[in-house]
Structures are given as C-alpha cells and as structure tokens.
C-alpha cells in the first residue's frame, strides 16, 4: 500500500521532471518565412517545361502527361513545325487543380515536364493559378541536363536523317538481304 503510493508519486514526479527539463531545451521548430529549409531537388511542387541542351523545347505534345494526370489539370494542342518536329501549340496547367503527384513527370518520354521544389507559388485569384505555356517554359534543362529526345528517337525531322541518331545503325538496304 505504502510502496504503491511511493511508486505513484515517483512516477508522477518523473513526468514533471521530463516536461520541466524541456523548458531548458531549445525548440526544434524552424521558423518558416525567416528560415527556408533547402529542399531536395526532387521535391514535388511547381511544374515547369524544360528545354533540351540546344535550347529547343523538349515537349513533343504527346498527351501522355495529360492522359496520366489524375485530376485532368493538363491540356494542350499538338502541332508540327516545317521540319517535322512536334511541339505544343498551346500548353496549359491549371494549378488550382494540380495535386503535385508527379505522374506527369514520370510519364513524360522527353523529360520536358518536370516538378521543381518551388512550392511558394500560391495566388489570391484562382484564375491566376492557370499557367500558360509561356509561364511554364524555362530556359534550362531542369533535372535532366543532357537528354535530347530527338537525338535518340529514330524520327526523321530535318535535323537528323535515318541512321544519324545516337546508337542507331545505318539503314539496311533490304534488297541486299535477298537471296
């Protein structure tokens, strides 16, 4: 009975000691606007459209990002230039809907659409959250500095003919294979 009472008092005192000690510990809190924690490069926030190392638009308007987007916030219109290269006539992301899941980035075959760590892009007006192509396009390669889709894809565009692409064999003359 007395032992139990002593145990109870001791355990309560231990609790008070633990919380009391915290008064002399520096808080772990990071004060946000004053201190901004450097975020990893692969943090998922504001979406950009990157360019290839030569400075051309990477996006080929394949609609894969738009198709995979679970909230349907990406829309575009495909077009083709005089050299046979596809591009987006217009490209629109409604950030009011975007859930920053990063599926578009995973789906993109050309590394064009990428998420950046810049999460501070909130607007007072919902319509200002709709970003057009000129708002999304940046003049760097983002996280994939030396990938150029058209250097790998076997598509004749006027920039490169058949057999001119990286790790592509010269075209085979099918007639020479005949017996």
């Amino acid at each position: 009975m007395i032992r139990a009472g002593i145990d109870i008092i001791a355990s309560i005192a231990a609790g008070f000691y633990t919380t009391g000690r915290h008064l002399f510990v520096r808080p772990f809190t990071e004060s946000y606007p004053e201190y901004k924690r450097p975020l990893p490069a692969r943090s998922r926030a504001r979406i950009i459209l990157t360019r290839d190392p030569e400075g051309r638009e990477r996006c080929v308007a394949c609609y894969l990002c738009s198709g995979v987007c679970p909230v349907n916030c990406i829309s575009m219109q495909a077009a083709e230039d005089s050299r046979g290269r596809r591009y987006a006539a217009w490209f629109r992301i409604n950030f009011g809907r975007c859930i920053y899941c990063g599926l578009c980035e995973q789906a993109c075959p050309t590394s064009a659409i990428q998420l950046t760590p810049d999460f501070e892009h909130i607007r007072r007006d919902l319509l200002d959250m709709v970003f057009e192509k000129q708002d999304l396009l940046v003049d760097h390669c983002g996280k994939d500095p030396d990938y150029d889709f058209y250097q790998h894809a076997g598509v004749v565009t006027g920039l490169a003919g058949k057999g001119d692409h990286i790790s592509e064999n010269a075209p085979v003359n099918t007639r020479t294979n005949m017996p």
Partner: protein
Amino acid sequence: MWFWLLGYLVLMAKITAVLTAVMVLAAYLVLVERKLLGRFQVRYGPNRAGIYGILQPVADGIKLLLKEDLMPEGADRAIFLAAPAVVAITALMMFAVVPFGPRLTIGGREIPMVITDINVGLLYVFALSSLGVYGVALGGWASNSKYALLGGIRGAAQMISYELALGLSIVPVVMLAGSFSLVDIVNAQAGLPFILVQPLAFGVFLISAMAETKRIPFDLPEAETELGAGYHTEYSGMRFGLFFLGEYVHMQVMGALVAVFFLGGWRGPVLPPPVWLLVKIVLVVLFMIWVRATLPRLRYDQLMNLGWKVLIPLALVNILITGAFMAA
C-alpha cells in the same frame, strides 16, 4: 451624504481596478499558457503577433468579437444565451472577497483593500464556484447536442465529487483562523503561512481546485479528444469567449484562494502587498500549466475514485488530526 458618495466612488474604483487587472491577466494568461505549453513540448508557441507574440491576446479578442454568433437549431434559446454569462460572472464575482492588501489609511479614514469583507467570505466563494457549474451544465444541455450534453453531465458529476473535498480541505484552515472571512484568514497567517502547518490540506485543496477549474487532468467536461469541445461545442464568437474568459478567471480565483488560504495572501517582504498576491497567483497558475503539460486526462471512474475514495477521506482525517492538536 458626501461620505456615502465618497465611499461609493472608492468602491467603484476598487471594483474597476480589480476587474481590469483580472481581465488583462486572464488575456495574458492565455498567452503565457500557450507559450509555456509550447516550450514544454519543445516548440515556440505563438510568436507572430508582435514580438514574442505579445499582441496575441488582442488578436484573439478581435477574432472572437468579429466571429458569427451561432445558435444550433432546437437549442433552448434563453438558457443557451445566458449560460456563458453565468460562467464568466460567477468567476469574476469571486474576486470580491479576495483581500489584496492591508487596510489603507487616507486622510484619517480607513479603506479596506478588499472589495467587500463579508464574514462568510469563504462560503460565498464556494457558493459562486458551485453556481459556475450551472453555466457548464445548462450550456451543455441547452445546446441540443450530444457532445455538449455529455460534457455538461460530466461537469455536474465532477462538481459533486470535488466540491466536497474542496470544502472539507479548507475546514482545518477555518479552524486555525477561527473565521470564514478571507481577510481574517490572511491576518491569521501573519506569523506562518498555513502551507507549513497544513501541507495535506494544501495538497487536497490544490487538486480539488484544479478539478474545479476543469483543467487537465480534470478536463472531462471539455475533453476535446473525446467530446469535440464538450459543453461549449456549439458555442462560437464572444459566447465561447466568455466560457474561455470564465475558465481563465477561475484559474486566477483558485490561484488567489490558494494564496489566501495557504501562502499568506498579500503578505511578503519588500514588495507591495498587491504585487505579492499577484506573484502568488501567477505561481499557482504556472504550476497548473505545468500540470497540464505533464499529466494525461483521468478516466471518468478514476476521477470518481480519486474524489470519493482518496481526497475526501484524506480531508476528513486531516480535520480530525487538526482538531486533536487544537484540543491538546
């Protein structure tokens, strides 16, 4: 006639001073509590409004005043509207008998440094304290909401278990002082504060006082993890603010009562008497905040056990021992 008018003015001045001090202190106790709870949990607490969050009470007050005053459908209108006022008014009225200094002599006339020194001051305090529970129980009942009703019922049940211990724990103090008047009780501690003579009564009173103020670990009527917000779930705006104010004023009242009954009231060296009372009130309140940061909420049956099986017997034994010593 002139003396009557003068006395009236002095009384009004005292009431104004006490009410202002209590209200301002209540507002800043909220800030102190939030800051301290933050530090107890190794975070900063509110620090955005002004330096160190010094303007937080102002911001909170403006917010509460500007919020919509909602009333649930099917609520008992009159009681719903009156309940917060009951809580706040009873808490504020308790300060009427707390002495904050010795008699002051100005121009040959004695001015008692207490709003009113009634000879049953202690009973008056306990009566008001019990009345305050009406605000909780009726507010919970009139809200027409399950959670609020449960909170109100718990409030009433808790009051019954703790009022007894609260009252009984003070009996030895009354026996030693020979008076129900708070002024006389402070005067009786001129030599030795009663905490040294009556440590057991002090412990029982402090625990019961925390239960009376409905604070963790006795916050069953609120119990935000179980009942939403308990009896004030359905309240918003300044009506919720009144409940809130009532709770913090109640904390101060209990601090003042602990100071008056056990810590010698306004007595102390060097500093002026009202400052000593303030210091003691704040010390008790700081202890209550520390308790809140440390202990978990008691279960309903644990609360009843503690009240009926531990505190009341302890208080009764204490009365017996004190009586035996006084008779010997």
